């Protein structure tokens, strides 16, 4: 692995560990005793049916929600992220499904939104931001845009996804969480985004991909974790699964025909 991290790594090789995480909203138990490991430099796919708790778990990691119980370990140390800014400070960036780009701003302006560089304290340093944005996009081999000064409104879906990802990795992030990155894309655009995810891994970043599309999951994921009704029922190397078993875990919470009812009895 060629991660861009200088600090000594925890011996178990895990960038992020979630232990016994609980989260409820009123009477609804959204997450129940969730344990999740995200290793350095690997792509982990988080799968689950609608309402399984994928988004809640993501938001607990990204600092949007506070878990009721349980602990998150970041590079071996217990951490509390109170908001997205705390998470960003650790090196966790999230690319949401709606991408959160301002259509009227250009690529550079979007990538630096909220973190603009200044010269002489007041004025925006456009040139330096443009150079940095260009380098990041070139590093990710996002080369199909005509100009990085064109408004995001004029980009294709895959290009927009690429800009959102480039925005996330600009800030020395170590973990990029992507929520349904290929959901709204065509075949060519999907390929573009999957290649981008592989490039992030090649650069040593850890990626967590939330996806319904199991074909995409098997294409990029090194590890697969499955949530079922708020419980993390399985996590392992991707090679330990095939499409059938993942579907079974997602729909019944177990690998055998009776597993689902067993997990509901708990």
């Amino acid at each position: 692995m060629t991660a861009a991290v200088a600090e000594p790594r925890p011996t178990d090789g895990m960038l992020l560990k979630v232990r016994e995480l609980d989260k409820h909203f009123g009477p609804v138990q959204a997450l129940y005793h969730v344990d999740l490991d995200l290793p350095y430099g690997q792509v982990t796919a988080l799968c689950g049916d609608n309402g399984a708790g994928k988004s809640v778990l993501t938001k607990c990691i990204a600092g949007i929600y506070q878990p009721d119980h349980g602990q998150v370990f970041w590079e071996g140390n217990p951490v509390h992220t109170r908001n997205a800014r705390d998470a960003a400070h650790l090196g966790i960036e999230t690319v949401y499904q709606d991408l959160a780009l301002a259509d009227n701003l250009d690529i550079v302006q979007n990538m630096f939104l909220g973190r603009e560089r200044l010269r002489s304290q007041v004025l925006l340093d456009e040139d330096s931001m443009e150079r940095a944005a260009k380098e990041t996009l070139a590093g990710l081999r996002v080369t199909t845009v005509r100009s990085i000064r064109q408004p995001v409104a004029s980009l294709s879906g895959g290009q927009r996804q690429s800009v959102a990802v480039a925005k996330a990795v600009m800030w020395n992030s170590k973990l990029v969480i992507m929520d349904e990155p290929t959901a709204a894309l065509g075949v060519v655009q999907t390929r573009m985004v999957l290649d981008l995810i592989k490039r992030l891994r090649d650069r040593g970043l850890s990626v967590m991909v939330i996806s319904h599309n199991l074909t995409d999951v098997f294409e990029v994921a090194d590890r697969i974790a499955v949530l079922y009704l708020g419980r993390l029922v399985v996590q392992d190397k991707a090679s330990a699964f095939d499409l059938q078993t993942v579907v079974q875990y997602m729909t019944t919470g177990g690998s055998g025909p009776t597993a689902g009812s067993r997990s509901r009895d708990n």
Partner: protein
Amino acid sequence: MAGVAPEQAADLTAAPEAAAAEVPPELVAQTLGEYLRAYGARIRAGESGVLPVIAAMFAIILVFWAISPNHVFLSPVNLVNLFQQAAVFMVLAMAEGFALILGEIDLSVGFVGAVGAAITVQLIQPITTNWHWIPAILAGLAACAVYGAIQGTLITRLRLPSFIVTLAGFLIANGIFLKILLLGPFSGYPNLAGQSDNLLVIYNLMWGTIDPTISWIGAAIVVLGLGLSIGWADLRRRRSGLVAPPASLTAIKIGLIAVVAIVVVAICNSNRANIGTLEGVPWMIPIVLAVLGAWTVLLQRTRFGRYVYAIGGNPEAARRAGVDVSLVRTVGFALCSFTAGVALLLYASLLGGMSNNLQGGQYVLFAVAAAVIGGTSLFGGRGKPLHGVLGGLVIAAIYNGLYLQGISQVEWQYIVTGLVLLAAIIIDAASRRGASSGSVTRA
């Protein structure tokens, strides 16, 4: 499976003409010819910049010149008169621009600005408070800014629609304005006639002129300063390996600015009086330019300005990026009202006082119309202070031209202005639809 190369090829061919049209032409063109072709594609796609409004302005000027009695429309007297009428529209449109770019609207600008101007005019009256003009102006503008900040706070903190809050603010400001006019022994018409330097200064905002020689020197400094800063920015981009517009284009831009400056100063410097001399650039021109320059820098070169555009484009994206959306919106409304105060101060100067005849509601429509005609979007996220200046000039030209034709009845002015506003909004909505349908086909 697919390598990088076929993926890129597929993506490039998948991007239709419309996508290319939305890219600002100076970014993809290396030569003037390429630039013109790219610009043509952009205009056809409805993303046109300021060229159409300038073309429309020339058309209006030509028509009124042709039909006005003795071609008086283009006489220096009338043109300076036109600039003075336009000044109020221009500054008010720049005020409204803050609300429009944020994706909101401010219906109160006319009377809120009038409250500020009335405060100033009352404070400098020698027989009552007799304030110096500087603190009087500051007090008037501060009152406007506070009024705008209160409206902005209601809109952002209580999540009320700006349309309703500023409609209420419009009525309240109208009442306050009339109350302020009734103060003092002026039977509701405090004016600027009288023997007082402070009265004279306010009167001269619109009517005072700068010595012709100094006018030329000032224009030269402005053109030189703008030219150097544009040229320097281009040079810096080229040196650091970034794409810069073709040098010939930059030269043409600077040349056009110089031509406009020379024409304006030449018009103003010709003797406009029938008896005696009246010449030189009116103070109001540097005042409008100062507002234009300050708000252009604020909106396009600072973090605050960037956040204003981001909120207009996608408030959720701005919020997630850590922008204090409520604060930026509130400051935006405060700046809108503050600038309206400047506009109505110019109005008071033009009128030589303040009067309860002020059509504050009509002025709001003019402000919105001017901004939209100039190219600012009613849907948020797009617009520049320059749009307000160009749009204000168009509205004033229509007004002035109709007046010269003897069509001075208010009815016709209302109807024509309404039609122009409608036309501008239709163009705005159509270009917006064109852009979004383009994105759907590209997605």
